[in-house]
């Protein structure tokens, strides 16, 4: 099996998933009624008229989560190949990766201490 043959089904699945979803949404558009009105087109705000724009500011905590995610997820990409080769690398690989994990845990402890993991607003 060449790499192309291994990955080719993904392209097919991608096309089929998109086409099927488009077909169903298209069928719904054909079958469903179409009676637009200003009330229907308004965003839902519990029955009252919408106040201001919906594109509001939101808590900075969510950006903190995104930053943390990037740090830890990039780390995961490094660990995948290493986890596969664990037995071949032996003790030297073990020590290197334990050190790497230790530095990350120090980072997590620092973030924790700084209060970036607290979601309560104060």
């Amino acid at each position, binding site marked *: 099996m060449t790499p192309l*043959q*291994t*990955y*080719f*089904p*993904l392209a*097919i*699945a*991608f096309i*089929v*998933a*998109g086409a*099927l*979803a*488009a077909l*169903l*949404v298209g*069928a*719904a558009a054909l*079958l*469903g*009624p179409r*009676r*637009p009105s200003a009330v*229907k*087109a308004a*965003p*839902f*705000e*519990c029955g009252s008229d919408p106040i201001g724009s*919906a*594109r*509001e500011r*939101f808590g900075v*905590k*969510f950006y903190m*989560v*995104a930053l*943390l*995610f990037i740090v*830890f*997820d990039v780390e*995961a990409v490094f*660990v*995948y190949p290493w*986890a*596969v*080769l*664990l037995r071949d690398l*032996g*003790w030297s690989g*073990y020590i290197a990766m*334990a050190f790497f*994990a230790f530095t*990350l*845990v120090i980072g*997590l402890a620092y973030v*924790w201490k700084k209060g970036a*993991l607290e*979601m309560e607003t104060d």
Partner: protein
Amino acid sequence: MPVNYSPPPKSTPKVIVAVTLAAAAGIPFLFLGLVLLLTPVLKPATIDGLLSNAGIDPSWRTPAYVAALFVLALLMMNYGAIFSGVITWWERRVAGRIQSRIGPNRAGFGGFFIFIADAVKMLLKEDLVPADADALLFRAAPYFVVTGFALTFVVLPFGHSLVVTDLNVGVFYVTSVTALVVVGILISGWASNSKWALFGGVRAAAQVISYEIPAGVSIFVPIAMAGTLSMQGIIRAQGGLPWEWFVFRNPAALIAFFVLFTSQLAEANRTPFDLPEAESELVAGYLSEYSGFRFALFFLVEWGNIWVLSAIVTTLFLGGWQIPFVSAEYIDGLRGAGVLPSLAWWGWNAVSMAVFTAKTIALCNLVIWLRWTLPRVRVDQMMGLCWKYLVPAAFACFVFTLFWELAVSVAPRIELVSGVGFTVIAVVLAVLFARRVHQNIQAVQGEKIDLSNW
């Protein structure tokens, strides 16, 4: 004015019972049967052989291969869609029983066809786009969600040789394509131009990316134990009996199993982590402005993801399709030597598929059960659980596994000791649990237990 509902049927006509049972048995039988027939055929050598047998020119090989792939991809997609429909029905029945009410019982025997009625209803609804919404992104969001869901089916191993393509980066691929779902959710929340949708979308993004960390780190445990990223390779490194499963073979893997299962629940936005669409505070979260079939697509993915997460956990920790007492290598050897009759080969594949499906459905049931048992957590509790408990626990499991694997290479017997020990503990706990359930039923119903109303 009171509404007159027709009274519930006293007894279901025999024809409806027969049709329902036929559909309930026939749908999985048909889909799984077609998958069973088509997947092993999808090898260039097999297609060449079939073409030459049928006397067709070999230049048709590529079109035939592509056509077979299209059919298989369509099958997998339909399998996911219909299974998510069936699971909505099952969830409502279970919810009904847990909350001492009836649940759906009109469309077909036991209300089985409710999911078809729902789909038809959704098809006949108006497809609304809010006036100030970003129309392009609003319309595009469901496609991201659906493709992210459908692409995982390509690498899910249904049986011994029943996988569309066994990528050598299988697990990594699954974690990366499921990320498309969160992109779709974030787009839908932003594009709706509704405050509820925005809050729901941002919450969903924060939740899913946070839980990606413990999920990703706990996945290292089975990868390190198997020494491969391929889904089939991970299953082959396990065995059919409980003490040969990864979950019991290593104490850290048992913890990693719970970490992964919890994180997958959160990534699939299931209760107790369904904050993004918490109906008591956010109306319907990122789904608030969706209607008609676009809404249905989100729900299809939400319920279909229950199958995906159960299948992933089964693959990584619970031995996948491995059948007790017969090793996959033994069958491969017989097949390679040419002494295995072709019918026995298909039978073996069918049994392995049944084992995998049974394990996955048991886990799906657990997911549903959890939803109707646990209350929803708060946002800060959800974040705290992830970053303060699951992430450190996953790191500890991962570092312990490094140590454990090196110890196993010196003394292979410790895996067996751990496996048998944990299996015994699990069996004892299961027996105690069953006795407790029995006592509770007896306390309510007395000595004579009546299950006819279940």
